[in-house]
């Protein structure tokens, strides 16, 4: 826990100062998780605020402070899931914007010492996001929580309220699709390199 149980308890009872303390303790971690889950830096704060608004209105349902962290992660996953679903609806137009944004960003860093490193990171982000685009949002979030955020199956069971075996099956299927997409991408790259060279 990043804050004392008593602070959570006070926030639960309606103490706004205590709630501010809880937000300040967790916001960096939550914003980090959201930014990796949704892959869009410009919307991270918006989704993060939505998580804390939901926390504010549901704190009174928290039975024990011990389950606070899994619960906060569940709110985070739900908010990210809602965001990704909304995004899918307007995906095509946003993809065009995104490419433009990336070009502008790439232009901005071009010529600087960090250019190569930023390009490498951008390439990784693009690749992972395109791979994650091949699986449903729900599986994407599960996979990210497990593989990128490093949660154990036991922890995820507590967060999602779903049996470990069910999670294993879903994760296995999601991973299979990612592997397939990854191998396809590798073949395309190899073919592109051969035809180019």
């Amino acid at each position, binding site marked *: 826990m990043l804050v004392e149980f008593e602070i959570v308890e006070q926030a639960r009872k309606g103490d706004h100062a205590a709630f501010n303390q809880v937000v300040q303790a967790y916001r960096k971690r939550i914003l980090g998780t959201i930014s990796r889950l949704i892959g869009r830096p410009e919307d991270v704060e918006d989704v*993060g605020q939505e998580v804390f608004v939901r926390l504010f209105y549901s704190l009174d349902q928290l039975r024990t402070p011990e389950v606070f962290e899994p619960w906060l992660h569940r709110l985070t996953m739900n908010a990210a899931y809602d965001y990704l679903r909304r995004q899918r609806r307007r995906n095509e137009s946003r993809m065009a914007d995104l490419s433009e944004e990336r070009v502008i960003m790439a232009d901005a860093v071009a010529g600087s010492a960090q250019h190569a490193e930023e390009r490498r990171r951008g390439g990784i982000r693009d690749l992972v996001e395109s791979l994650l685009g091949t699986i449903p949002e729900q599986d994407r979030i599960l996979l990210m929580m497990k593989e990128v*955020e490093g949660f154990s199956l036991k922890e995820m069971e507590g967060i999602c309220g779903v049996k470990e075996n069910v999670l294993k099956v879903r994760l*296995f299927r999601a991973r299979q699709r990612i592997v397939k997409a990854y191998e396809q991408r590798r073949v395309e790259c190899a073919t592109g390199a051969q035809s180019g060279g």
Partner: protein
Amino acid sequence: MSHREDFEPRETTDELAELFAAYRQSIPDPEASADFMPRLWERIEARQSFASGFKHFSQRIMTVAALASFVMGVFLAVPRHSTSPYYTYSYMELLAASHGQESAGEAEIVEAVHEGAR
């Protein structure tokens, strides 16, 4: 051997694990902007005022509905006096009367049929 490795080539599994680790490193935890907290409280208060507005609205609707039900109940419960003969008879009385008329009509028809047969 793990469940995952039974179905995936080891090379791909390792590459994916590395890719996810690199992705994790490429997006560090960001710092919140200076107006994060003020904007958060604005959103909380906006939702609070919307919720309380909705609550007041639904309370008003409930009151109006209860009042309308009461008025309707009174209207139906109070016996009304009318000079129209239609309202002075009960349903059963009207039914019996119309049955009597229909029976008389039927008797005439039956009689006419018999006479025709003769």
